């Protein structure tokens, strides 16, 4: 099956790339499965119950909640993006659909995005040159849609020095370039 076709990362390599500029390290994550879950109209209660059984947290607006096997962040009213380990959830959309039934619309999103983990002692000086998120002002677990270098992205704060960034996959190289020059500029 899939082994017959060699996967290519969003940055165009066989293996995920990790780049360090000054104190900033950008690591491409190639092991994260992603799907969207949106409540069908008027079925939020059902979705909530099914999600609980499935181990799917459903955080409030602008929030990320870690869980097992699923971690989730809010993207729109009654809509979330769900992360899981790709190795065990390559068919994440199918698995979620089976778990949530008709209460939700589920869409595969894994390859729609490039997933980048950002690490530095403090990421605020980097991110303030890229987007209008008040990174040092928001709490850990803050998740928001924002624009970086003209690209609509999701930014999740895991700590002052840890964040995950989802950007449009086709622009992965442009996004990485923007991160690199901003890191050189900021530090």
């Amino acid at each position, binding site marked *: 099956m899939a082994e017959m076709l060699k996967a290519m990362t969003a940055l165009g390599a066989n293996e995920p790339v990790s780049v360090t500029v000054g104190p900033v390290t950008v690591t491409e994550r190639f092991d994260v499965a992603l799907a969207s879950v949106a409540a069908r109209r008027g079925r939020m209660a059902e979705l909530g119950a099914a999600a609980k059984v499935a181990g799917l947290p459903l955080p409030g607006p602008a929030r990320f909640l870690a869980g097992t096997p699923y971690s989730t962040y809010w993207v729109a009213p009654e809509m979330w993006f769900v992360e899981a380990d790709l190795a065990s959830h390559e068919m994440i959309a199918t698995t979620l659909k089976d778990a949530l039934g008709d209460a939700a619309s589920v869409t595969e999103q894994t*390859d729609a995005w490039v997933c980048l983990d950002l690490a530095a002692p403090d990421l605020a000086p980097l991110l303030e*040159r890229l987007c209008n998120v008040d990174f040092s*002002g928001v709490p850990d677990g803050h998740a928001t849609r924002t624009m970086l270098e*003209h690209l609509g992205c999701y930014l999740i704060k895991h700590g002052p020095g840890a964040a995950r960034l989802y950007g449009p996959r086709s622009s992965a190289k442009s996004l990485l*370039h*923007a991160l690199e*020059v901003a890191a050189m500029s900021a530090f």
Partner: protein
Amino acid sequence: MTQSHRIAGGQIDRSKTLRFTFDGIPYQGHPGDTLASALLANGVRLMGRSFKYHRPRGPLSAGSEEPNALVELRTGGRQEPNTRATVAELFDGLEANSQNRWPSLRFDALSINDRLNTFFAAGFYYKTFMWPKAFWEKVYEPIIRRAAGLGSVSREEDPDAYDKGFLHCDLLVIGAGPAGLMAALTAGRAGKRVILADEDFALGGRLNAETLTVGGAAGGDWAAGVVAELATLANVRLMARTTVIGAFDHGIYGAVERVSDHLAVPVIGKPRQVLWRIYSKRAILAAGAIERPIAFENNDRPGIMLAGALRAYANRWGVKAGERVAVFTNNDDGLRTAADLKSKGVEVAAVIDGRDGAEVIDTSGRLGLKSIRVRHSNGRIEDIRVDALGVSGGWNPNVNIHSHHRSRPVWDAAIAGFVPGNDGPPGLVVAGAAAGFLSTHGALRTGRDAAIAALGLTGAAPDLPEAEDAPVCITPLWHVNHGKGRAWIDQQNDVTVKDVKLAKQENFTSVEHMKRYTTLGMATDQGKTGNVIGLAVMAELTGRSIPETGTTIYRPPYTPVAMGALAGRSRGKDFKPYRLTPSHHWATEQGAVFVEVGNWLRTQWVPKAGETEWRQSVDREVLATRKSVGICDVTTLGKIDIQGTDAGAFLDRVYANTFSTLAVGKCRYGLMLREDGIVYDDGTTARMGEHEYVMTTTTANAVTVFRHLEFCRQCLWPDMDVQLISTTEAWAQFSVAGPNARKLLEKLVDQDISDAAFPYMGAGNVTVCGGLRARLFRISFSGELAYEIAVPTRYGDALLREMLARGAEYEPIVYGTEALGVMRIEKGHVAGGELNGQSTALHMGLGKMVSKKKDSIGMVLSQREGLADPDGYRLVGVKPVDPNGRLTAGSHFLAIGAAPVAANDGGWLTSKVYSPHIGCDIALGYLKGGNAKIGSRMRAVNLVGGTDTEVEIVSPHFFDPDGERLRG
């Protein structure tokens, strides 16, 4: 000449010497100097020429309000014109040149304008260059442009980088003088997130330029102490060299940080400047006040400065502006200058106090002040030999940013100046001299109180240090009534009292009219020193009060901003991000030619060895596809996942044709209209499940269609159960077209895809290569037996290589957008040229697709009489009668023998290609009454391209009109 005018004291580091040049002559200065202070220290007063009369000029001020001392800094790509020497921080190796002069600063040929000044009064060119009319553009304007203007650009690319960024704070404090420092200290100690921004490289404002004490310490030392404390607070961000340039909506302020302007070149990787967008909950404007001059005859000679500037050069930079100095003032502050200079050992020859009736009435000195002529209160006229004169006409609170939302400042007679009104930007409080509190104590107190009020602080506030609290003692004196010579108001634009009088005489008495008629307050300094005098003179002339006369509108930016800072990183190849298709790497390996389609880089064609001209590649790709099989990356088409129990009904409303009846596992071509009935977009939509559809859009409209659908879902029909999400990038999708398309795919797809099992317009989930999830659609844009196959994007590159390898026996080729265009035009499919935002389904020959059995967006308005005209435009095919005839897109249809005028226009060619199957150029076009004209002959005329070709009007379906191939 080594710093002949340097005196003791000042905030310069004398342990280090910096070398710099001005007009090629080497000089020396010290860290802490500006270019102006260093030049003055070296006895150089002449720094520029004025805009219109080319009058010799030196610095008037010691700050960003400077109208005169404009220079070109650096050379080559870094050359920047119109830089104020008064704020240019000195660095080792700095190269500065004077501007707006020829051949040299001292001997400027165009200073003849000064002799001819009677011809160059305000409005002269409006009146003078009226005839002959044709001369304006060709003769007058080029000459005037060459003569006028200030600095020049090198026309080389700027080698530096510029950043943009976003900052957030509870309190933005604009200006780090006593008021700003006190506000920042109050808020910072209270734990609030504070940004303190100041345009200067040294924080402290006027405290650095005065000998006043604060809390028993020298003002500059007190400021340094506060800055040191603020620097220890993690919640306070100190931003020196940062000019807040404007107040925008919702507490957002623009600011330019000059990161590297004080260095010869930026550190590698660092930007020259950063344009910050500061999101503040509250802001305090503590921008201080700007001293204004007094207008008198020949008040613009080098050596005549604002009194506060003379003081600043002496106190902050250890520079005496002259050997023998006089002061002309109408307020006590001017007297402070005389006292400070005297204490520094500078000879003060005279203090002329306008309040006593004494006035300076004229000056002399061609390239620099030599003497002043004083009329004493008793009428006695005296010439006094001085080489510097400090002038103080009072201080104008710096209300600029407070007025960016059109707030009108109000007149405060006590200080004879405008102070901020009550209708400034929400959340912005003004403190210190900017609010009209001109004493140090007033600044400290109002700065602290503003922070408390703005943030609602309740805890203990910092104690107020002891400081002077002298009252303002001023008698307004705007201009000296004497003589017939010129007395400058706006030195940058060479606007004199006479010009304002002329404006009044010609009835341009409104301040806005006066500004445009005289150019008062325009250009790089925006009249910071001249505006109030100008309108005071107009008030006097018209018999109105100054507040009745009013002010002009203040607009951002506060000081000039480099274009690079506005552009940021968006330039050259980084102008926008690129989107790369899944086949990009393969295509790059093959030497493919790419075309920009929005942000996408799509393969345009893939040249093979020996192909020297693009048509060879494209013709080959088309012929090979129609002969066997071709593969095209169509990932760029928009893909929207539409789910929910109302998904079918939703599609019925957004599409002109019906989708709710589409069977699961089938797809259908859909036409989407705008509200006005014009075709918006087209594409195929597949029903993947009972409540699950996948819509494809054109590449160009992928985002706008998604936005449109979200608008429909959220705003028009929020009661529908529909969920939308884009999956454009989640799937790598390839069109596989040609007679051998199925045979090729059968080598990869795990399921039966025979015509019976997977008929024309079939769609479904399949697996490839032994289990990889994939989607297959049997749709055709080329007119061939064709499929579109999609796999998760990460496998797109591998799938393409696998298709080429496994299908090698069919000699598959990869074709690009050019071949795609040829085949779709051969087939008569509409695309960008036809989906032009002004055509209906009827025009495209797709009128029957607009179902009237249901309501849909645009259905009703598409039936409008004008749009439904049977003689209106119809899509037709076009061939040249002579197969060698050339067609050009955009050509207009004309009847044989008709004159090429608009009245005879029959329509136009929308898309044109060379068809290797037909063997000639072919085109699609909109032709009035086109259906009835099929078979007739017309002309395709392009007056711009110079072509006039006789053409045959044919069916738009050039190739396989019955669609036998695609159903094969």
